[in-house]
């Protein structure tokens, strides 16, 4: 299991191990004499990777219910067999807002339809609730936060949704993987070939961290990271011409609160999008850009602003379902006899 990420906010330090109450009783569950030595202390808890199917502990008393967590690749494939699906890969460096996007979308369904899309059901309700928890008042936080995703195999959040206009009822799988793994593809593009969610995606969603775009010291590096990451995906051969690309500027609320109203950041994002479209647009069936505030931390945007547009893009009929034209070609026979064809009726 990878180390949890250091806590970034000013929350009172505590242990990332949920069983350890060192912050309360001063006793480290792992036996470290002081908290400075403990690798878990002072870090944000991570979203645990669920055990593989069949490894859930036997019920203590009775009948086991279906798990309610993210799905492994195999479990997600099983869901796909039952109904049409949309596979959404959400890529971006850590803290770009991948889990916030997933949790923010889920939270919108708590309030009703998202645009024309209604909630049907989900096999990942526990996982969604955990992802949304630190932005909820029940956590007693005073600033919203999102748990980080552990390194490891991709996990899919599952939603069955209904497009109330077209009556399409796809099963939507939102891929979640630790951001640092995507970032590492810049140095080792071939590692992207192991990321099954990229190959299978109907929409590759690449996040651009709006907060970093505001920072003069980081914005150039950020744009370079996004470009290099996309380049690595293309170089690794994991993008397909039937895929759509969504370039998503996150943390819109923070950008709007900037002294210039976010003008420089918006321009920077537009320039980035134009460059990526020019250089990589031909690798995709479509390229669209979005500016979202999935879980705002200020009053600069509405909760889930513009997620309805992004969701509509995700919900579009996947192009992999669209049959291409078939070219019928009769192979030329080597023997003259085999080249004989029936005489047309009007000649007879």
């Amino acid at each position, binding site marked *: 299991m990878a180390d949890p990420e250091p806590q970034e*906010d000013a*929350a009172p330090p505590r242990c990332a191990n949920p069983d350890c109450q060192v912050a309360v009783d001063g006793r480290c569950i792992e036996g470290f004499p002081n908290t400075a030595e403990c690798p878990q202390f002072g870090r944000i808890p991570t979203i645990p990777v669920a055990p593989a199917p069949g490894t859930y502990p036997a019920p203590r008393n009775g009948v086991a219910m279906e798990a309610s967590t993210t799905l492994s690749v195999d479990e997600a494939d099983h869901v796909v067999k039952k109904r049409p699906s949309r596979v959404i890969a959400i890529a971006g460096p850590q803290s770009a807002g991948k889990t916030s996007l997933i949790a923010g979308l889920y939270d919108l369904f*708590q309030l009703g339809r998202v645009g024309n899309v209604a909630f049907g*059901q989900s096999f990942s309700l526990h996982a969604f609730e955990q992802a949304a928890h630190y932005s909820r008042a029940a956590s007693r936080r005073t600033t919203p936060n999102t748990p980080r995703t552990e390194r490891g195999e991709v996990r899919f959040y599952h939603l069955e949704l209904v497009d109330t206009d077209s009556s399409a009822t796809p099963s939507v799988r939102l891929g979640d993987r630790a951001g640092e793994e995507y970032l590492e593809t810049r140095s080792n593009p071939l590692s992207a070939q192991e990321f099954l969610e990229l190959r299978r995606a109907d929409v590759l969603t690449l996040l651009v961290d709006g907060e970093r775009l505001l920072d003069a010291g980081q914005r150039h590096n950020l744009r370079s990271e996004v470009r290099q990451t996309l380049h690595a995906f293309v170089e690794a051969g994991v993008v397909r011409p039937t895929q759509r690309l969504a370039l998503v500027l996150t943390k819109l609320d923070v950008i709007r609160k900037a002294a210039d109203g976010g003008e420089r950041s918006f321009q920077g994002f537009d320039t980035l999008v134009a460059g990526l479209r020019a250089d990589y647009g031909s690798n995709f069936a479509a390229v669209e850009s979005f500016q979202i505030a999935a879980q705002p931390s200020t009053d600069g945007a509405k909760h889930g602003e513009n997620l309805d547009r992004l969701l509509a893009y995700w919900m579009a009929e996947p192009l992999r379902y669209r049959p291409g034209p078939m070219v019928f070609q009769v192979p030329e026979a080597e023997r003259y006899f085999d080249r004989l064809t029936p005489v047309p009726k009007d000649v007879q």
Partner: protein
Amino acid sequence: MGLPGSGKTTFLAALWHLVSVKEVPCKLTYVSLQTGNVEHLHEIASQWRAAKKQERTAQGGDKLVSMILKAEGGDPQTVTFPDIAGEAFLQMWGLRECDETVAGWLKEPGVLLFIHADKITVPKWVIEEKLLMEDMGIPVEDQAKAEEVIDWSPDLAPTQVQLVDLLQSMQADPLDVGPRRLAIILSAWDKAAGRGLSPEQYLARRMPLLDQFLKHGLNPDWETRIYGVSAQGGDYDDDQTKLPDAERLRDIDVPSERISVVYAGAKSNDLTEPLQWLLT
């Protein structure tokens, strides 16, 4: 079925009074009691008549009561009410396991799902509360000085999420038995009726995720009705407090008239209405 404090026991108490005393006309009439914990039935009905709050049903002490009821012109039918502690359903949501006996009961084709209309936990967001406090001029505590952050546990989930999961579980293995009839009872309807909404509108307004699930996620072969039910008629006394509302209700000469059932724009005192629909 229903989460803790959703009004299951009160419904059963009022129902027993209603069918056994026969003060008002009902769609189902009482024929006889079958096996089961009859003492429990008398006890809870006695509390109900005295306008006193019911004791919480203890988990593991689930009470099973069967009675034979009969519709006009119909054959007598045995109706079984397992008075299951709400914690059993929390266990299904949180621990993903279900007591074997409870699992057996949950395979019946007719389901009464209780939701306390006045105790719905809705999701609230940190940012909304923070902005509200700022608007009101209340200083927001710095995160570093704020009280201990609470980590996630399943019981913190909004009511509608827990109910969606419960219904999903009933249409999946090992509880799936095919099409069913689902009567949703919005209990303590007297607390919600003042908003001027029908039970369907109230559910859609207060629990939009559940509303979407019922329309799009529930097996289309299931049939659903949503009732607004006030089995008490108001607030009852607890052990320590005597309430004026309870006194008012005790003053009503015909206790069955405390009950109100709202469905499809009509109002009655007949708690057997949803049962009759489930049985047909």
